[in-house]
């Protein structure tokens, strides 16, 4: 940008009028000072703008004259422009072919209205989710009668991306959980000289509760969000619409492969997390309380009834369904603006984690009541 001559404004108050002599470049980048002067100027006399000295003019200059002329007129003073050249007039006529009108911004609603609206949206959201659930299961029944239309290839690719590729992060997190639990219990158990009970502690807490929960949370963050983003992007590019017009049911092609893949891999990942987590505890037991690996494993065989392990694994498919359905459901809710992908991805992960924890609590209550 040339900054050869900034816009300047000289105000001369005469007896019957105030003359504003404008000179320099009246363009967007050199107008800020003049605009500040005019912003604080209080009109006392009719105003005449003399613009014969300006060297350059663009729409910002024209807008400025018009804006402040209107302001002065509202305050009861006439305002006119003299000394304009032909090109100035042309620009003026292009920009102000007719009088401008102000459109007020949409009305802000009151608190009660917002509360009502939110509640309504929430209830409606539950309705939409039930709709989704119903249609998903109808598609399942339909596909069970024709097993050849199940997308086996898609299922296997999701098993790889959501399951196999997640092994490193599951290993690290469950190892650390094993370490943490062992550390915390070693200190307490040593007070009673009951060091050996660390094996029971780790074995039961990990296999029954911690490994399934940690695995589900990692998968919800990793794959649940990916499901929403993938389906949301497809929705934005109208791929979902294209699928529908071709008669490919999107739930059959996009929802079920993800649900089934997660149902297959989550129990396996939990089993994997069990092993790594117990190993983590074993390392700590060995270093902190000098319990040898053989002793640990011998004790584990007696101390860990198989039912705890089975309960942990059985939770897997339930968690998988919750994660996959909330991820895919939120994906289908994405609308045509880019912002909504982020919003629904966040929602899907938050919902999935909440549902997993709620489901786990339900399991705890039920199984305790059943004396398992």
């Amino acid at each position, binding site marked *: 940008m040339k900054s050869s001559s900034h816009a300047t404004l000289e105000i001369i108050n005469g007896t019957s009028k105030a003359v504003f002599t404008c000179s320099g470049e009246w363009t967007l980048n050199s107008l800020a000072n003049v605009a500040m002067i005019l912003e604080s100027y209080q009109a006392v006399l009719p105003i005449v703008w003399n613009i014969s000295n300006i060297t350059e003019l663009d*729409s910002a200059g024209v807008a400025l004259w018009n*804006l402040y002329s209107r302001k002065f007129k509202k305050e009861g003073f006439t305002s006119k422009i003299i000394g304009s050249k032909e090109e100035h007039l042309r620009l003026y006529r292009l920009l102000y072919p007719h009088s401008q009108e102000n459109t007020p911004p949409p009305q802000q609603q009151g608190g009660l209205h917002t509360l009502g609206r939110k509640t309504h949206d929430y209830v409606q959201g539950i309705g939409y989710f039930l709709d989704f659930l119903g249609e998903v299961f109808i598609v399942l029944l339909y596909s069970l009668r024709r097993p050849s239309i199940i997308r086996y290839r898609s299922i296997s690719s999701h098993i790889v991306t959501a399951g196999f590729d997640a092994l490193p992060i599951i290993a690290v997190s469950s190892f650390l959980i094993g370490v943490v639990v062992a550390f915390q219990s070693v200190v307490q158990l040593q007070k009673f000289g009951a060091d050996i009970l660390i094996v029971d502690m780790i074995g039961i807490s990990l296999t029954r509760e911690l490994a399934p929960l940690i695995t589900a949370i990692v998968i919800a963050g990793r794959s649940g969000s990916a499901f929403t983003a993938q389906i949301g992007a497809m929705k934005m590019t109208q791929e979902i619409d294209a699928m529908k017009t071709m008669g490919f049911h999107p739930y059959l092609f996009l929802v079920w492969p993800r649900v089934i893949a997660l149902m297959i891999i989550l129990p396996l990942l939990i089993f994997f997390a069990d092993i790594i987590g117990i190993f983590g505890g074993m390392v700590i037991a060995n270093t902190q309380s000098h319990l040898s690996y053989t002793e640990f494993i011998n004790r584990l065989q007696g101390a860990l009834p198989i039912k705890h392990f089975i309960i942990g694994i059985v939770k897997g498919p339930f968690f998988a369904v919750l994660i996959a359905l909330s991820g895919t459901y939120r994906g289908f809710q994405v609308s045509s603006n880019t*912002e909504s992908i982020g919003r629904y991805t966040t929602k899907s992960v938050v919902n999935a984690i909440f549902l997993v924890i709620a489901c786990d609590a339900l399991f705890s209550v039920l199984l305790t009541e059943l004396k398992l």
Partner: protein
Amino acid sequence: MNPIVIEARNIVTSFGDTCIHDNVSCTIRENEIYALLGGSGSGKSTLLREMIMLETPASGSIHIFGENIAKLSLVEAQKLRRKWGVLFQSGALYSSLTVGENIALLYKEYTNLPQNLIHELVKLKIDLVGLPSHAIHLYPSELSGGMVKRAALARALALDPKLLFLDEPTSGLDPLSSRQFDALIRQLRDLLGLTIVLVTHDLDTIHHIVDRFVLLGEKKVIAQGTLNEVLAVNHPIVDYFFQKETHGIQG
């Protein structure tokens, strides 16, 4: 003859193994409406993206306002970017902002003008491109296709650029809206003294508003010049593109 605004010399572009441009050159002069034409995949959009510094050619040089855009410092490049406006094919309006905020963003970032002057300028630009005044409060998702193009044009014109790049300005518009949009572009050129570079497929646009153009094909420049000059060139792509034998444009 008007001074040269953009000069692309011997541009070579390739993505991986596919060569897009092989020694493409063109010259765009001040105050003309210049079109980049060619079939799908002929690299016309890529050439436009290279001019606006979104892509870099493998070799060759592009001079805009006399400056080699490959050799600019970060500050110089920022300065140059403010001298042009770009209208993307899909509008590319920021979807979290209203139309008014989309336009005001540039003023807020680049000028120190008072709030009500910014508001005045935003209203002015919205009016200039023929949008209804209530559009200022609408979000991009609430606009029709034609309104999105107009809003995007208003945003491209925000900083009063001297140079305007339009990527398929009339695609997705109905014929009547397309002609109105053409008329608007032409009016802006005449009254604001703009130089306009556009990529288009629309034969009517080419016929009605384009002064000169370059026709790309087979990685090279097939023809360059005014419509009559290009129609005089004997080349299968020229014949195909302008449907000389059928119902297309006659010179």
